[in-house]
């Protein structure tokens, strides 16, 4: 599981950093075009917003992998290590079940889309919308990786008691 999670991490980093660089260049160019050539790039804003959606869901999934998302941890930090692991296992079960529900409804949504197109670029809306199910699926895999780690720690801990 860890190998899968690490592989996905690489893909997420590559895709999201390229999009981040692209957003910067596109918006800067669009300012130049509007001011100096008087020809605004009509697609610039929409393209940037769609890429930000992808960054949000891919980056959000990375943030969950890195444990870098804000959480209230000062209570659980007071537990001893053994209880922390048990607590983590319990919370991960809740999180994984909830994520599974989210993933199910978001794929359901993507597959039931009629062929709507975006307003300025006229690209099919499943392209930006897919960021939701794909980001959540990746997040699920990362968190499943954490979960398996905790289970392993718990087993080892139980063996040594």
């Amino acid at each position, binding site marked *: 599981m860890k190998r899968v999670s690490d592989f996905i991490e690489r893909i997420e*980093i590559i895709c*999201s*950093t390229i999009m*981040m*660089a692209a*957003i*910067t260049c596109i*918006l*800067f160019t*669009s*300012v130049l075009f509007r*001011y100096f050539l008087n020809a605004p790039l009509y697609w610039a*804003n929409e393209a*940037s*917003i769609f890429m*930000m*959606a992808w*960054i*949000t*869901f*891919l*980056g*959000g999934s*990375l*943030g*969950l992998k*890195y444990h*870098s*998302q*804000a*959480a*209230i*941890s*000062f*209570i*659980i930090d007071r537990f001893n290590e053994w209880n922390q692991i048990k*607590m983590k296992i*319990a*919370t991960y079960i*809740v*999180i994984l079940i*909830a994520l599974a*529900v*989210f993933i199910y*409804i*978001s794929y*359901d*949504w*993507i597959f039931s889309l009629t062929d709507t197109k975006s307003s300025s670029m006229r690209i099919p809306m499943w392209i*930006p*919308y897919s*960021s*939701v*199910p794909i980001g959540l699926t990746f997040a699920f895999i990362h968190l499943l990786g954490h979960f398996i780690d905790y289970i392993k720690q718990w087993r080892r801990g139980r063996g040594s008691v």
Partner: protein
Amino acid sequence: MEMFLTIIIFIILLLVGIPISLVLAITAIAYLFIVGDMTLLTSVPQKMFSGVDNFGLLAIPLFMLAGELMNFGGITTRLVSFARVLIGHFRGGLTYVAIIANMFLASILGSANAQAAMMSKVMVPEMEKEGYDRDFSSALTLASSIVAPVIPPSMLFIIYGTLTGASIGKLFLAGIIPGVFIGIGFLIVIGFMNHKYNFPKSERATLKDIFQNFLSVIPALLIPFIIIYGILSGMFTPTESAAVACIIAIIIGFSYRQLKAKNIPTILKNTVVNTATITFLIVTANVFGFIIAYEQIPQTLASSMLSLSENPIVFLLLVNILLLLLGTVLDGIAALIILVPVLSPLLVTYGVDPVHFGVIITINLTIGLLTPPVGTGLFIVSSIAEISIERLVKAILPFLVVSIVLLLIITYWEDIVLWIPNMTSN
């Protein structure tokens, strides 16, 4: 009954240490299951997407990127040494330098956490070298970093603007005076401390030194100039000004010869992950908004608040207290994203200006970064400066008191906040 159950679930999930973004999402679907509204459940993914479908929000990754680029480009050291040659020779010079450099940096960065990290890395060792004690140096650096989200650009203003529809440009302008005001407030307090403790001073810099240092910071100070000028003249939106700031930051970084091409992937990755922690929270909070709308929480809150008092002063005081209390346990950005949709409908009822309110809530929640048990600023500085949280908290207390006093002044003196935005709109 449904609401009661939902609140219990929310609090439990929060206290067991689940990331706040997931807490919001899980609570929302739990609620939809409890009330049994399956049609609404199927619209959850669409609702998530629409949370980021906003041009204003793009300013977050772009200002984040500009900050990272500036950081790698060695901006902090330059700003500190510039402030130092200017005022370092006064008694307690470095204490003023810490505040002034923080104010300069605030006009480039939009996040107190990022700024506290960058400043404490440079400032604390410098101050220790000159004989200040580490507790005091860390506390001063951290406390003065609260101007970061008040002086434009500001992540909190961008988020507040996108959540309420208030103009981000106006919020940026409204932050200038309060930000400078907080800086001056700290300078005065430090002045008094100087009398008492007889702080050390550095040697006076030569005019040549001053000039050279000035030259090296000019390009960096172009960034705040461009942001403000762009907004005032209507030449570009805050989002576009952020994109321009990034390009300038790249040019400056390379011309200072400190930013290397090999740094770029790391910079982009940091930007993406830091951005997503904010925008992902906005996405899940948007789903959480179902509950707020369904249960008509703002309306209920408004009627119970009105029965308490119809006076806006009392309302603002209650908000101040509520936010300071919540700020002790909740991360500032998370608190902002959760609370703004609940509180902003009350503004019309009490006749509070939304831009003024944005400034109040921002300062309020930024002070929360300095308060235990959960103060992100405390965690960051204590790990960088290697001092214990307890000692840092003790040293920061006087600054905390001053910040709260300044907050109250800004809360009740609307004109000081709205002066610049009103001047430009007329």
